């Protein structure tokens, strides 16, 4: 199956490893992610002011481009997914707004394209049982804390990916990879998002609480689908960070763990440049040595 793919700004720059591991595991599972031929930034925030139709223009252009290419467009970045999916829903519910944006962009977005996250494709198209069958390096004994964050889940009415208060999609994915999902109370708590631009100390406090909670629950890694969560949780654990305690845990994208479990070579894990290097830990499962 081929499916259109919208990488977004961050996956083309800071989070290249998420992009690479995502494309590679999708291909390995028979789902080829075909990058949209001509895309631009989605704006990174969904406008919450009802009179701010300007901010809907960028995501609508993306949806228009995707509509030319097919029925669905997949995203990996949780924020791109959130913005595109909410724009899709908003323009479905408000045809007058769609007409207004189309008039401005001089592009006829018809409102037919469906925005999906790779997690949805894995769950609904491939299925967890099939994924489990493709695992060649079971992550048995790896205690992984699924960190959902905010924008992948909320608001349910517009996103609808999973239960916003008790999500399971990352848990189910980890089980299919034979890892042990670790429940911890901060699984759906906010990491501070773009507060990190304005009040880094506030977002670092939130992030440290999340990481400490996962560690206290016995997690060896945190698993996320969002490049901003990944940064906010990993950055305060960097080598030069004030208050570093020496018991840092890697913050991984779900696609990176999938790459290990599917037996892909280390260069396809996409784990270079992370502040907490996960390779010493992951190699234990990739090589099948004692752990």
């Amino acid at each position, binding site marked *: 199956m081929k499916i259109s793919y919208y990488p*977004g*700004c*961050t996956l083309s*720059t*800071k*989070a290249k490893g998420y992009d690479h591991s995502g494309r590679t595991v999708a291909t390995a599972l028979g789902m080829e992610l075909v990058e949209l031929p001509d895309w631009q*930034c989605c*704006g*990174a*925030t969904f*406008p*919450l*002011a*009802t*009179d*701010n139709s300007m*901010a809907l223009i960028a995501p609508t252009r993306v949806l228009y481009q995707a509509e030319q290419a097919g029925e669905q467009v997949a995203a990996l*970045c949780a*924020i*791109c997914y959130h913005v595109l999916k909410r724009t899709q829903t908003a323009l479905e519910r408000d045809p007058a707004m769609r007409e207004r944006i189309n008039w401005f962009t001089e592009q006829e977005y018809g409102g037919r394209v469906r925005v999906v996250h790779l997690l949805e494709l894995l769950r609904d198209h491939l299925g967890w049982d099939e994924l489990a069958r493709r695992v060649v390096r079971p992550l048995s004994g790896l205690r992984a804390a699924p960190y959902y964050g*905010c*924008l992948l*889940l*909320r*608001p*349910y009415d517009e996103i609808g990916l999973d239960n*916003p*208060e008790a999500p399971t999609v990352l848990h189910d994915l980890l089980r299919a990879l034979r890892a042990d999902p670790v429940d911890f109370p901060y699984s*759906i*708590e*906010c990491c*501070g*998002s*773009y*507060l*990190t*631009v*304005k*009040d*880094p100390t*506030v*977002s670092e*406090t*939130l992030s440290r609480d999340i990481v400490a909670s996962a560690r206290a629950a016995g997690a060896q890694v945190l698993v996320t689908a969002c*490049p*901003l969560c990944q*940064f906010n949780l990993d*950055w305060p654990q960097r080598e030069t960070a004030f208050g570093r305690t020496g018991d840092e845990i890697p913050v991984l994208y779900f696609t990176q763990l999938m790459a290990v479990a599917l037996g892909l070579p280390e260069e396809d894990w996409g784990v270079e440049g992370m502040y907490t290097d996960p390779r010493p830990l992951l190699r234990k499962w990739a090589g099948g040595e004692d752990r």
Partner: protein
Amino acid sequence: MRTTISVAQLRSQFVRDVEEISGEDLLACNQCGKCSAGCPVAAAMDMLPSQVIRMAQLGLTEVLQSRTVWICASCLTCVARCPKGVDLPRLMEALREISLRAGAAEINLDQLPPDLVRELPQLAIVGGFRKYIK
């Protein structure tokens, strides 16, 4: 401190602006406090989220001076839990917009720490600029 609340304030242009920009009905909130109880950034706020709504309901424009509207990261936890279906992040956005449209800027681009800016993911910069400055 004595606070005067008048009928004129309750029906002021400020209240109408907040409701128009947010698309929310301020009086739908019955002050149960569930938003404040679950807010992950409440500890960093000078006023609880439910208190921000209360002040806006009463037309008290001092609420625009509160740090709370800028600390809210639109994580939408309160939206998922509000028993009255109030979209509080939309109200916070309306309050931020009222300040930003009057010329306020919440970040100074020249004073962002360079070591952080070099490392920040692009979406944090784009999103932050959209939220904190016009």
